[in-house]
């Protein structure tokens, strides 16, 4: 994955070691004493709202009580039983809109939720299990193909393996982990955690991962369908949405996810191309991740532009604070109108049109302004990579909007083919949601296979 369109740019002034210090843990881990204090705050609610709201149904009160009772392995196992990606979810989950928002302590006198995310991380980081916590059931003799080694695919693979099935995972990229490896801000998942987590997950056995296998390129759904007992598609959303403006391909304009992936994989941060002035378009967590990271690399001026107001941003308030704390300038109520290019055809800025809300409809006011920039990063959402579902069988998959249609058991309209994670319609596009999809799909697959077995 090269970001060739920025190759002409200068590089960060600081050396790699110094730059790396800007990408350490955004929210540092709790030490034992902090975990003891924080876990003591949990009220051990009955039928707890935090558990109810967790997409994977982690028994939060139980794992926190275990932490307090110094049963860290018990706490970690309780988390992993529901969510095998409990470690990365502890770091990347928007807890401020999930468990920590539901925490009853928000309504208690101090008005502060229990730091559930940090406690979850404490449990996972400090577990000392001598073996993988889950054993495989007796072999079913079945093998399932999983496409995509991201959270959805691997969650599905792990649960299928646990239930006694063998799994072959097909992954287009060099590394497993999906967005955890390539897409999350570097300071949210540090120390190669994504790979460590994948390795831990694979300890269960029965899972083989084949890299460089891209559906629609060197891998056909019809072959998987023919060769395996079932197929799970955890494709994610591989395509960045387009602005639809002239100059979209100009040097200096690229998708934020591509730069983030490059940044996360860089062995030398000082070798990255770095615009001194950057515009980020969008208002999701990816936009914030992009803006903050480029600022931390040493960009002079980073402006995030969004066509609506702060309250409409999909980035949570917590994320918006991170951007503000990192001196990211945020302009709202403005939409891209024209990519401004210099004589060499490279990005020199962007013209925006001010917008307003007219009866719920976003409308341009006709008034414009320009922001000078050396690079523009698009973070206006991701979509299905159409190429990956374009082979003769895949193209018959029923769609739901631009995503794959599934029923409540994560079955597509094609027999033996299931899908989950960001590439399907239900749920929010969150890691934790993808993990739950994978887990539930595994149970559906396993149960469907066994039913067929009984019927035969």
């Amino acid at each position, binding site marked *: 994955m090269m970001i060739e369109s920025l190759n002409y740019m200068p590089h960060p002034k600081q050396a790699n070691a110094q730059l790396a210090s800007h990408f350490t843990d955004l929210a540092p881990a709790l030490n034992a004493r902090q975990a*003891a*204090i924080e876990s*003591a705050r949990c*009220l*051990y*609610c*009955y*039928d*707890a*709202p935090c558990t*109810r709201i967790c997409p994977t149904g982690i028994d939060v009160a139980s794992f926190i009580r275990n932490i*307090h009772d110094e049963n860290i392995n018990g706490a970690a196992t309780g988390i992993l039983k529901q969510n095998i990606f409990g470690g990365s979810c502890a770091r990347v989950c928007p807890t401020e809109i999930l468990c920590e928002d539901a925490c*009853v*302590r928000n*309504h*208690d*006198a101090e008005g502060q939720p229990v730091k559930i995310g940090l406690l979850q991380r404490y449990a996972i980081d400090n577990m000392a299990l001598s073996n993988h916590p889950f054993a495989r059931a007796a072999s079913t003799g079945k093998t399932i193909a999983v496409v995509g080694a991201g959270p959805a695919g691997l969650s599905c693979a792990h649960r299928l393996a646990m239930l006694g099935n063998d799994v072959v995972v097909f992954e287009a990229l060099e590394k497993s982990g999906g967005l955890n490896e390539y897409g999350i801000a570097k300071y949210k998942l540090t120390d190669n955690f994504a790979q460590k987590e994948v390795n831990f997950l694979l300890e269960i056995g029965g899972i083989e991962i084949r890299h460089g296998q891209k559906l629609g390129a060197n891998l056909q759904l019809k072959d998987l369908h023919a060769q395996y007992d079932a197929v799970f598609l955890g494709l994610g959303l591989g395509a960045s949405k387009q602005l639809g403006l002239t100059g979209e391909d100009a040097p200096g304009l690229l998708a934020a996810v591509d730069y983030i992936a490059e940044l996360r994989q860089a062995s030398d941060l000082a070798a990255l191309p770095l615009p001194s002035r950057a515009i980020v378009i969008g208002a999701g967590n990816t936009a914030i991740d992009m803006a903050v990271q480029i600022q931390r690399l040493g960009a002079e001026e980073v402006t995030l532009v969004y066509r609506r107001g702060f309250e409409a941003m999909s980035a949570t308030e917590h994320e918006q604070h991170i951007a503000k704390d990192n001196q990211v300038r945020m302009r709202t109520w403005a939409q891209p109108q024209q990519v401004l290019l210099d004589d060499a055809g490279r990005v020199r800025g962007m013209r925006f049109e001010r917008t307003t809300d007219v009866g719920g409809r976003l409308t341009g006011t006709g008034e414009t302004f320009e922001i000078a920039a050396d690079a523009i990063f698009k973070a206006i959402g991701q979509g299905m990579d159409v190429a990956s579902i374009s082979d003769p069988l895949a193209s018959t998959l029923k769609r739901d909007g631009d995503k794959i249609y599934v029923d409540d058991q994560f079955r597509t309209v094609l027999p033996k083919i299931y899908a989950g994670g960001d590439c399907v319609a239900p749920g929010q596009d969150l890691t934790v949601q993808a993990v739950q999809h994978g887990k539930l799909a595994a149970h559906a697959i396993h149960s469907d296979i066994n039913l067929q077995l009984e019927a035969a």
Partner: protein
Amino acid sequence: MSKLRADLSIEFCGIKSINPFWLASAPPTDKAYNVVRAFEAGWGGVVWKTLGEDPAAVNVSSRYSALYGKNREVIGFNNIELITDRSLEINLQEITQVKKDWPDRVIIVSLMLPCEEKLWADILPLVEATGADGIELNFGCPHGMPERGMGAAVGQVPEYVEMVTRWCKTHSKLPVIVKLTPNITDVRAPARAAKAGGADAVSLINTINSITHLDLDQMVAYPVVGGASTHGGYCGTAVKPIALNMVAEIARDPATAGLPISGIGGIGNWRDAAEFMALGSGCVQVCTAAMLHGFRIVEEMKDGLSRWMDQKGYTKVSDFVGKAVPNTTDWKYLNMNYQVIAQINQDDCIKCGRCYVACEDTSHQSISQLIDAAGVRTYEVIKDECVGCNLCEITCPVQGCITMVPQKTGKPYMNWTQDPRNPRAENVAAVKAVEETVAAV
């Protein structure tokens, strides 16, 4: 700032004290240095750490352990220290000097000796010569000393308590306070014995036999002494309920009525002190709280007690000493017609569900959990099922959210002896007559 009006000075079995806060016989009162610091901090008196016969006791290392709450606050404390490990002569010299330097402060000398009258007869004049205000007989130490026939070994045998008390009254003019052990079935027996022996007062409780916790790796209890442990004396906040009950038992026992009580056991603030006093303690002794926080705590204790007294219109301590004793009675005299019902203040409720699960699992299924379409939970008391046990109020994390509301039953006072549901109702009156006869004897 308006001046506090309450007079905190007391007279306890003839001993005048500028306030009712004394330090108990324990490590904080082991030597002049500590005691002087305590007096500087404002304590009204001290009971000097127990003196015994020479050679002095020898202590081990380590000595203390604790039971912690969820936030590492010390709930209970335990020690295996013996009586003073310094010579009698040094202690007597220091007592003499400190009393001379601090004439308005009380110094009580704690004593522990084998049960031989001559030993007591010999030591008492020496103590009297220091100018000390009184003596306290340590009949309560539960660790180490009982193995040598002293401390709790004496306190557990009422006849010994009476005998040694009498020796002390015989050989000394000083007020004698008998310190009682809680490691006994009925604390009234040694209290009656102390009174029979001529005691001027009792003090209680001494510490409780205890093991606070274990090292499960080494399989040994704390405090660890070279890979082994022994039971120690338990004190601190955790023992307060036990101490309060024992104080009340003596205070309301007709046989010991009027016997001054020095309350001890988990007192850490003015409210604890006021509670002990309300149940009949004329003064209180503090140890663990001072050991954990230093002598400075007496400042807040004095201030808090004064303000509370002002607020309540008590001008002197004796105005409220014993005031809760008449309201402490036997179960059989409680009003069977009294009824409270839990009431949940929905504005304060944080929806944790603790009241619900507690009542549902372990009590009377008197709280309903209602979940609306949006998943919002509401907890409501089922009035007809509620027996008024207080469990929901106790487990509720929000202070004041659940209250127990007295109901208007329209029924008069009726105790168990009068209750038609009592199959032995006719016997109760007879039992009471017997009890009164016994008490009179």
